[in-house]
């Protein structure tokens, strides 16, 4: 007998940038579309959300988008319109539930499955901390920290149904790639030219990297998402980037992209030879893209991000040709560790490794995709908890 899909409330507080709401939105769509869940998403910053989902009407408090019921999370909306919890209530990324929702958790005869959805990590401790149902000290309810990750013992990664098949079909079809490129203002694929997408933080060592690319003499096309590395690009080329325009500087063509939707960004990752990705959503998407990536990890005080970076490398790049691994590690250290930017290795050494990196990334992407995704694991966990609670 197939159990009905659970209903789920997800609360998302936008801290900075678009990463958190981007992850939540993908996840909600996967829960609704692939798992059949009734999902209510509460987001406190509709300006940020609208950049990710252009069909969002910022003037409406409630709306349905792609089978998800979207709420503007404000005290007024919660007070007026939140009348009861779903089967499961999720705090995304350690946000705190509104007081009214907190109160309602204890009012249901059978309490909802209460989950704190954390950021993903490949660190080994996640395996032993994931999904441990824990008695909450002040409410007496059960609450569970759910950790997305890369192993069978974690919550897995968001991957909607059919994603890998769509990516493989796209990568096998040059005509489809070029048609898509034309639609977003990127020139067609060209033999002998390396395409690199550059999505990075403002503090990243873009200029040393560009100098390295220039020294390599190899023809390179850089695809730069709107608003990224503007100052560094201006200093290097002497021209302030304008979305939709191209700047040619020596052997590098700078393609300043218009703002891309999540689907279009996926296609960018699928069609570039190397992807610089920042934060967590774009890293996971680059894993599914099966192309080499340099992870620009979100910087934390006391270098707390560094073990997380290397845990990912040790997981994803395990078994890579040692020489390429050394170059990749060195480059990633330079890209992510403060004070190491003067150690820039010649970019041509990284470019020379791209075929080996791509073969490895394709294989690891498929191995990762053989595991259940985050939505599947979360729904299974919720069902199990609902069964245990009777």
């Amino acid at each position, binding site marked *: 007998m197939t159990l009905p899909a659970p209903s789920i409330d997800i609360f998302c507080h936008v801290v900075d940038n678009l990463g958190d709401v981007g992850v939540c939105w993908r996840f909600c769509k996967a829960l609704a579309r692939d798992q059949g869940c009734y999902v209510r998403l509460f987001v406190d910053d509709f300006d940020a959300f609208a950049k990710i989902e252009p069909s969002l009407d910022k003037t409406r408090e409630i709306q349905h988008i792609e089978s998800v019921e979207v709420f503007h999370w404000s005290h007024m909306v919660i007070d007026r319109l939140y009348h009861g919890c779903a089967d499961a209530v999720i705090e995304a990324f*350690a946000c705190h539930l509104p007081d009214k929702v907190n109160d309602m958790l204890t009012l249901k005869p059978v309490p909802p499955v209460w989950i*704190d959805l954390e950021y993903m990590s490949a660190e080994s401790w996640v395996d032993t901390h994931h999904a*441990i149902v824990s008695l909450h000290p*002040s409410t007496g309810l059960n609450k569970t920290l759910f950790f997305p990750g890369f192993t069978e013992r974690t919550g897995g990664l968001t991957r909607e149904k059919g994603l890998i098949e769509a990516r493989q079909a796209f990568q096998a079809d040059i005509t489809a790639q070029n048609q898509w490129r034309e639609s977003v203002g990127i020139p067609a694929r060209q033999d002998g030219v390396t395409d690199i997408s550059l999505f990075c933080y403002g503090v990243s060592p873009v200029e040393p990297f560009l100098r390295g690319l220039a020294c390599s003499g190899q023809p390179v096309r850089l695809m730069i998402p709107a608003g990224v590395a503007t100052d560094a690009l201006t200093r290097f080329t002497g021209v302030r980037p304008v979305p939709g325009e191209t700047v040619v500087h020596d052997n590098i063509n700078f393609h300043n992209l218009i703002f891309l939707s999540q689907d279009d960004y996926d296609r960018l990752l699928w069609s570039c030879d190397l992807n610089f990705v920042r934060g967590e959503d774009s890293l996971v998407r680059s894993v599914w893209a099966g192309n080499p990536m340099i992870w620009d990890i979100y910087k934390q005080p006391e270098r707390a991000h560094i073990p997380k970076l290397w845990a990912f490398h040790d997981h994803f790049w395990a078994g890579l040709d040692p020489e390429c691994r050394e170059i990749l590690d*060195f480059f990633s250290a330079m890209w992510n*560790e403060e004070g190491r930017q003067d150690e820039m290795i010649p970019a041509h050494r990284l470019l020379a490794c791209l075929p080996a990196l791509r073969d490895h990334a394709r294989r690891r992407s498929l191995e990762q995709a053989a595991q259940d995704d985050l939505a599947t694991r979360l729904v299974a966990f919720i069902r199990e908890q609902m069964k245990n609670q009777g």
Partner: protein
Amino acid sequence: MKFAQELRSGNVITMNGNLLLVTKSEFSKSGRNASVMKFKFRNLKTGSPSEGVYKTDEKFDDVMLEHKEVKYSYADGDNYVFMDGEYNQFEVSKDFMEDALKYLEEEMPCEIVMYEGKPLSIELPVKLVREVIYTEPAVKGDTSGKVMKPARLATGHEIAVPAFIEIGEKIEIDTRTDEYVSRAKVA
């Protein structure tokens, strides 16, 4: 009230009307994730074990219990025997010791926790000095940023230490987080 991050092995808390002894606590922090504590508990009434994972800013009701200053003497089967300054002996079951076993050495000073007149568990000093029994040699020229490596103590417990630490060196450890603090100062 105590924050989860302040709870240590040997502390007792109340949850849902039960008195729970913390027998093991583990701190983890990475990237953007909230810092978390993983605890193992033992119910003082039923003896049943349980565990939980909490954000470090979660608040718990802790229970103040009597403490006595003691030193570890010897193991007697599954019990560990401690002695105070007046040569009174106190036995603590292995089941209630978990975290402490990582650092237990003869004559180690610590505090025994008493509950209803009986010895219950021990609390370790916040900082301890221990000798590294084994660790891999440092890799020369390692510039990858992976600067930590495992080091084994006499109890068999391993902690992460900087690459420059060598076998035989004494190091200071924070027992709350199991983290290396520094090279021990030579007396």
